[in-house]
């Protein structure tokens, strides 16, 4: 798979949300727990729709969850 240039704060946001589990977040975003694991570990960049759903689950703006790191050209 191509290198992922999107990092995230999901781990911290889950902690701030009272140690929300990956399973709980997955249910709120409508995906599997494995997909949340992959996103949290920056192994998979979610679609824009899923990214918004994750941000909505934490009730924060998208930019607070995901950060784009431009590739070295």
């Amino acid at each position, binding site marked *: *798979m191509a290198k992922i240039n999107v990092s995230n704060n999901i781990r911290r946001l889950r902690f701030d949300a009272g140690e929300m589990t990956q399973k709980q977040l997955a249910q709120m975003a*409508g*995906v*599997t*727990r*494995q*997909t949340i*694991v*992959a996103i949290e*570990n920056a*192994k*998979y960049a*979610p*679609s824009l729709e*899923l990214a918004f759903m994750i941000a909505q689950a934490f009730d924060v703006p998208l930019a607070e969850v995901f950060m784009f790191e431009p590739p070295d050209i």
Partner: protein
Amino acid sequence: MNYQQKNIYASLFTILILFSAYYWKVSDLYAAGAFDGPEGTRLIGKAILALMAVGIILRIVGMILIGIFHAILTNTPKPSFLIDEHDREIEVQALKVGNNFTFLGMVSAFIALAMGWSIFAVFQVIIASCAVSALAEVATQFILYRRAA
């Protein structure tokens, strides 16, 4: 393990059982000379149709069995059948790999035909390429899920 990951094991189970049984049965029939003469091509067609039908049935049975075993072993009475965008992306990538193997098999079959191999042998090359392609798809899915974990 999600629904799609269980699917990988069901596919592997299906592929191994199906193609082993097919080649075992076909080699017996070949040894008995059943593929010789004009009836041979009809028998090849019937064998391939049977392979497809049994494949579908085995896949369904495999999914049910693996679902039951997984529910018992992990103590999850309500298994999830959710497939999300990540699963679909992995599925597409695996399909691409599988298609490459199928294409290689087709080219090999045409080469075999050009070299004067029998119709029976050419069909076996095609079936073998389908088996290899299916295994490559399963292996790709397995590797991609491992990498994402």
